Every structure is written in structure tokens, then in C-alpha cells.
């Protein structure tokens, strides 16, 4: 399993680097604007960075599945000692690891800035947790949309991004509240279940 995850990470190294770069850019913007006390500037820029990150996660999922489908990677791997379920699990775990690894720096920065600015961290702990959970789950749901559409051979990039935008819009509708988090979780699980069915039932 670890070998499969490692292989997925190596195959999608470009996405990891890009997502890491934009994540660090967001961190840098947050630190600079907090230092200069111009937090109103950081909000729109962070929003744009967030959109770029979500697009990256969506394309990561689509790229993983499309590459597999085009090059028949899983068909080859399935002839070895790896089942399709394990291949898919490794792929999803690798994607989730990339998402978490690139979003955790944002969380650490937010907590650090609030601590330095003498903000009431005890009250905003819950807010930070809710916002971070919603952010991670939105990213993961968009990644799942990418996986789904990458496999179903919808090559129109616009369609993939449109569906990812719909997922992001759920958070706009509901806010960073528990119902939104639950819905995102259910949506991700449903996407993965559908993908698992299609991925494991395809003939060699």
C-alpha cells in the first residue's frame, strides 16, 4: 500500500509542488498583511488563492484518473499483486495527504497570527476549527469531483471546474457550519462510492 501511495505522490509531484507554492503564498500574504495591519487586503487575495487551490485539487483528481485511464496504469497494476480497490484507496489517500499537507500551514499561520495579535483565541478556536474543517472538506469534495470526472472521460475542463464551483458554492450558501460539513462529507463519500463501483467493475 505504501508503495502505491509513494508512486501516486511521485506521479503527481507537480500538483504537490504547485499547491504547496500557492499555500505558502497565502501564508506569506497573511503574515505581511497582519504585520502591516492591512488585513482587508489579505481577504480578497486569500480568496483568490483559495480558488486557485481548489482548482488545483480538482485538477489533481482529474489528472490522476485521466492518466490512469489513458495509460491503463491500473490495468497493468491489477495484473500484479494489487487489487483495484487498493489502487483506488492509495490514490485517494495520496490526494488527501496532498490536500492536508498544503492546508495545514494555513491553519498554523492563522493560529500564530491570532496569538501574536492578542486575539481571544479561546473563542476563535471553535471558529478556526470549523473554518479549517470546511476548507479541508471542500477541497476534498472538489478533489473527488475531479476523480469522478477524470474517470468518466468528460474531457471538458470547464465542466469539471463548474461542478467544483458548485461544491464551493455550498459553503457560500450554508457557511462554515456543521450542516455544511456533514453535507460535504456525505458528498465526498458518495462520489468515492460511485467511483469505486465504476473503477472496480471496469474490465481489464
Amino acid at each position, binding site marked *: 500500500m505504501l508503495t502505491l501511495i509513494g508512486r501516486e505522490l511521485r506521479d503527481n509531484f507537480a500538483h504537490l509542488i504547485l499547491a504547496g507554492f500557492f499555500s505558502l503564498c497565502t501564508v506569506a500574504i497573511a503574515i505581511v498583511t497582519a504585520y502591516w495591519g492591512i488585513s482587508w487586503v489579505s481577504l480578497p487575495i486569500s480568496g483568490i488563492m483559495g480558488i486557485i487551490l481548489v482548482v488545483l485539487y480538482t485538477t489533481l483528481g482529474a489528472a490522476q484518473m485521466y492518466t490512469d485511464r489513458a495509460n491503463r496504469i491500473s490495468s497493468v497494476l491489477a495484473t500484479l499483486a494489487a487489487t483495484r480497490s487498493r489502487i483506488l484507496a492509495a490514490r485517494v489517500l495520496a490526494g488527501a495527504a496532498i490536500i492536508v499537507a498544503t492546508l495545514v500551514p494555513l491553519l498554523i499561520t492563522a493560529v500564530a497570527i491570532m496569538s501574536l495579535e492578542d486575539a*481571544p483565541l479561546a473563542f476563535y478556536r471553535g471558529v478556526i476549527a470549523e473554518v479549517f474543517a470546511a476548507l479541508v472538506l471542500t477541497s476534498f469534495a472538489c478533489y473527488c469531483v475531479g476523480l469522478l470526472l477524470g474517470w468518466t472521460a468528460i474531457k471538458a475542463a470547464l465542466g469539471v471546474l463548474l461542478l467544483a464551483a458548485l461544491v464551493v458554492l455550498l459553503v457560500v450558501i450554508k457557511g462554515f457550519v456543521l450542516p455544511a460539513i456533514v453535507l460535504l462529507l456525505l458528498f465526498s463519500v458518495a462520489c468515492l462510492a460511485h467511483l469505486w463501483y465504476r473503477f472496480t467493475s471496469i474490465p481489464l
Partner: protein
Amino acid sequence: MKTRRSSALNAVATGFVVLFLTLIVFFWARWGCESARSKLLPEQARKLDIDASSLIMPRTKEEPNGIPCLVHAVMMPEEVPTEGLGVLRYLNAHLPDAPNSPLYAWGVSGDYPRLYYSRSLGMIVYYFRLPVLQADGTYLTRPIPDGTEVVEEEGVAYAGPKGMGDKPDSKLGRFTDPLVRTAARDIAHQIVYDRGLRRFFVIDWHKKIVRQGPPLPGDVAPPVDFGWARKQSKCLNLYTETPEPLLTYGVNPGRTLVLDTAGSIRMLDLDTLEYTGFAGGLPAPATLFPSDRRAKPDDLFAFQVLPVFVNMGKQYVGCAVAVLSRDATAAKLEVFDANGASVAMADTFADVSRAGENGSPARSHSVPTATALYLDLPGEVLTGVKFVLESFHPPALLLASYFTASSIEATAGHRSLFVLPNSFVAMKGRDVRYGPIRRFWTALPFLLPSVLFGVLFGAAVARDARRAGLQGYARRLWVAVTVLVGLPAYITYRVTRPKTARVTCQNCGRWRWVNRETCHHCGSPWLVPELVPPAWRVIGQPEEQPCNDPSPRPEQTISRESEV
């Protein structure tokens, strides 16, 4: 069996994904409609004015008709679509000065005061810099070159229901769910209602005392807000215009207004912390299906209760109450006198031009804003679009909207995906003018198109499923789900229906599945040709007649000619 279970799982998963995405698309289409409608109302139709001079303001020698006082309410429906979105609501709710934030004041960069409710301690904590109060009741001063200045001390105090201390102590008790409002805009003077303890408290940080009121009687609805009670104040503005030095709170308020969950406004005596009388109620705005009953706070998108005090806050003369309907199409302003009697009210009206009967020229009519926004152009077009969108909503969810219409809070309805509390069906569900049966009967025209679409989609699924050869129970299940869920179920069916290879049936000539024993149309089994050798042969010479004679055949002599 495993394959069947996997297929069912796939159908459920796909169904959820499709439902989720479809409902988000529907939501934004409805949001666009609502947003466009909110901009249709002209400026003058958004304002409500009541001259309260002779109604509640005291008469003087100079002003025998009462002190001039105009009460103005302005609805701002264009703010509603944005304010209704969850993300803005979430961010606004977590600002330090948000109405229900546990952070009542927070001086940045170490500044004072800091006042908040500590959930872990169950106490209200106050970091202060206050004048030092001496035993004789005066403040401690110290000389400075220009005179004297009051000495201030920094400290922290913890207030529980049973008292106040410099350190958190279990003897002080615990607040469970406090609603805190600052009295007379003095941060050192708080009025608290604890939802768990069902009591009012007054906290005086100067005197370091906590006063506890008696528990509220069981038959009295719990308070929602007090002081200057309001909800979504960005969408509804209420103010007075008077030369009198009018103070909403007063300099030393002895009483305050309390709005409860039933929509009643009561007067609370801050000395005894008991209700002293009825002060008013929330009026119901003239919506598309108006109600003559009082509204509840949860029924309204926005409201404001403005107490009016005169004589530097010593004399309470009445209050003004403005409300904005759930769908932000109508507002109402009502003025109550000091005894809680309604003295004036006004609804929002808009002028619309309508053609007269028998082809007479169009005349201007004044109609309630809700009617104008829904039934007059261009709102009529938006109403049509809204109706079509609601008709494509899953019928089961639309029916649920009818039954849950009154139980969903008004602002929550603006970010609702599954049930639609602002749909026409739900509006009828809240129509209290009729009994349950007549109400449901009148809601049917709004519900039937959705059901009709469900049936049409169900019929399409049934036809396709029969052609595709789905088994009876699977076909019935798909049809039932499609009738209940409508378009999303139909899309799910199209996405997940079996795609096994099919061949022409040799018996009936229609497509049949290759993985079935029998044809799902005619029930014919596979026609396997018997392996019988044909009666004909292709050879180079005439075929010999079979010889049935059991005697040995004579040896064939080959002539010289045939050898050549």
C-alpha cells in the same frame, strides 16, 4: 448478490451526488430570482412614516398636540439575498460586537475593557480599568498639575449567578446560556437573561454586585432579546425624528423592553427583575397570503423594537416596532403607547399601473408591496420563473416544505437547500386563515406541477426500464423513487441504468440481454441450433444413393477410361 448490492450502493451514491448538485443549481437560480425581485421596489415604497406626536409624545404648553415625533422605518430588501447567505451570516455572527457572540467587548492590543462569557468557567469575565470607588461613594482622585484626576485601577472580575469575585470560584455559580445586553450603553452595567436558569440578572461591575431575579413563570415564553431588540438590522432601519432629547435607553434605566419567542413585548422592571406589563407585540406584515395574527420573531426576516423614553430616559412613552416579512417583500410599522395599546400602524404599499375593465385606460393603483412584487410586471415574470423552479424541486421535499413551513426560522429559509420555506407551497402552509383541510386544498395548485413532473419522469423511467428489461421489483422501485424525487432521480436513473450488451431476439426480433436465460420481452430461451448434419454434400461427382442392402458391396472395377 454482491453485484446487486454494489449496484444498489452505486445508485444511492450517484443519486445523492446528483441530488446535491441539482439542488445547488436550483438554489442559485432561486437566489437570482430573489435578488432581481429585491431591486424592483421603488424608493418611496420602502419607507413607512408615522407621526407619533399626538399619539404617544407628551403634551406641553408649547406643544399642545404633543412633542413632534416622526417614526420612520425603511426596508432594504436588496440586502436580504446577501445577508441570507450562510457564509456572511457566519462571519457576521462571529464578530466581537455581534448580537449573540459570547465576546461582548474586546479591546485590541491589550486595551480595556474586555468582557466575555467563558464557557469553561460558566462566568462572565471582565478585564477592566475602572475608577477606584471609596467607602463614602466618591471616586479616588490624585492631584495633577492642572487639578485632579480620577485614579483608575486595572483588574479582572468574574461574575456568576450568585455573585462576583476577583477569582473564579464555584461559590459564584455558573451561567449556562446567557444572553447579555449592555444597559444604557454603559459597559460596566449588564442585563443578563440565562436561558438555562430562566432568570434575569443585573450585573454592576462598579459596585461589584450581581442581582438575581425570580425565575420566569412556566407559562411565559422565554425572551429572545431585550433593550433595543432587533434582528438583521442591515435590512430594516427604524429611527425617530424629534427635537426632544430622546434617549432610547435613558441615563439610568429603571426598566427595559423584553421581546419573547411568542412575539410579545413586555416591560421588565430592572429593580425587581420582574415583568410589569405588556408593552406591545410584533405585527404581521401584509404578505402574499396575509395573516391577522401577531408574528413571532422566527417568522420575520428582520425586526426592530425601539423603546421611546423622554425626560432624559425617566419617562417611558411607548415603543415603535418595525418588521420585515420572511421573503422581504413587505414591511410593517406599528406604534404602541405606554400601556401597550396599538395607536397606529402602517404597511408598505406600491403604486402599480393596471388596465381598467372593458378596455379603459390603465390607472394607478396602490397595492401592498408583496402583491406588487409577485403579481405585477416585471415581478410577474420572476414569479413565473420561481414557480417553474419550485415545480422541478423534488415533490417529496416540496411536501415536506409545506408541513415544516412554520417551524423553520425565517433567515434559515434563505439558505435552505432541501426544504423550501419561502416557496409558494410553504407560504400556503403558513396561511393560518384556513383550517388544515382547506389550507392543504388551496396549496395543491402549487404542489401539483411538481407531482405531475414526478409522474412524467416516473413514466419515462417505467417505459425505459421495461425496454431495458429491468426486473419487476427494480422497475417499481425506480418508478416510485422517481415520482417522489423527480428530476434528480430521473438523471440518476439515466446515469446508472444497466448498460449490458444486447442482441436481437430470434423469436420476437427485439433487443434482449446477453446475460439472461430468457428474453425479457417474449420469455423465449436462447434458440440453440441442433448439430444435425445437413442432407446435402458438395462433392465432385454425383452423390451415391445410400445403399440399404446389408449384403457386402461388390468390388468396384476401375475402367481404363476412368483412369485417364
